[in-house]
């Protein structure tokens, strides 16, 4: 059974390493600043004791005021997991750093999010629509679509 790590503890540890990165840390998840996402991801992957080498899922949620990106990280070495979240507060042309250079597993899921939510991932090697066709207007999974 994978052990879910406490977000508060990890948040404190993370804030010491990268000042200003953590917005809040609750028991279930760590909410980080979108601008520091690449640094946080690198820290999560390379820090001994955490070693999150496996990204199981990237998804996005539309809360109308902001988009929330949810990353579920798993360490195969220690068999523990953590949920990492970040928020984007713009609806017009939202941009966030890609984690594909760090975890290759994000490749297709970030393309899908780009397709259905219109969130651009900077640094993604091939950001093209995955499910929809070229020339499709609108972003179907946004709550203001239709």
């Amino acid at each position, binding site marked *: 059974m994978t052990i879910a790590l406490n977000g508060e503890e990890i948040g404190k540890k993370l804030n010491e390493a990268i000042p200003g990165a953590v917005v809040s840390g609750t028991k279930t998840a760590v909410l980080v600043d979108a601008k520091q996402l690449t640094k946080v991801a690198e820290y999560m992957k390379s820090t001994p004791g955490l070693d999150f080498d496996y990204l199981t899922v990237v998804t996005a949620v539309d809360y109308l005021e902001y988009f929330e990106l949810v990353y579920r990280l798993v360490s195969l070495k220690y068999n523990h997991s953590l949920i990492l979240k970040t928020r984007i507060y713009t609806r017009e042309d939202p941009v966030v750093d890609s984690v594909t250079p760090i975890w290759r597993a994000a490749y297709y899921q970030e393309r899908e999010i780009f397709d259905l939510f219109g969130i651009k991932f900077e640094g993604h090697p091939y950001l093209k629509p995955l*499910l929809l*066709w*070229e020339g499709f207007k*609108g972003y179907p999974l946004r709550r203001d679509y239709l």
Partner: protein
Amino acid sequence: MEIIRPSVSTPQEEDIAEGQAINSLMEQCRSQIADPDRWIDEEIKRNILLTTVDAAIAWARQRSIFPMIFGTACCAMEMISASSSRFDLPRFGMDIIRFSPRQADVMIITGTITWKMAAAARLIYDQMPEPKWVVAIGACAISGGTFRESYSVVPGVNHIMPVDVYVPGCPPRPEAMIYGITRLHAKIVKGTFDNPSLSLPK
């Protein structure tokens, strides 16, 4: 020496061309295509002198229709069940399931058709030789089903091709599918001469 460069399009160009094709298909398919019932009467008028020959041809046709399956969703499982030994669809002459549209007579659409798939479905329909029939099986193929309002689903396969027989259900039982096929047989016979005993229910 001149180097001959073959005109190979990049994946990007192919994607754009595909998107344009899908968008133009969506524009063309705004309205439903009428079910092919109206031209039956005209056919009868034209072929009135050849009724006996037509009866023989229709009888032969009816008993050897080769299906082209287009199973895109869970209704395909019911069709597989219908064509296997328990329900035994092959006893109606649908023995050989064709995976090439050029050898098929009836196209059985089982499942949801998305706009991305619609272009392929239309291409396959166009490749089938005349005379051809289409059977739409399941709620999604008939009207889009639960996904009718969706951004990517064709709201009824009769937007992209004329449909002869609709089999409702989500998914329909194999018996319903077999009943639909027998109705199609009746329609094939009726297509060339009017037989009251085999007429379709109004």
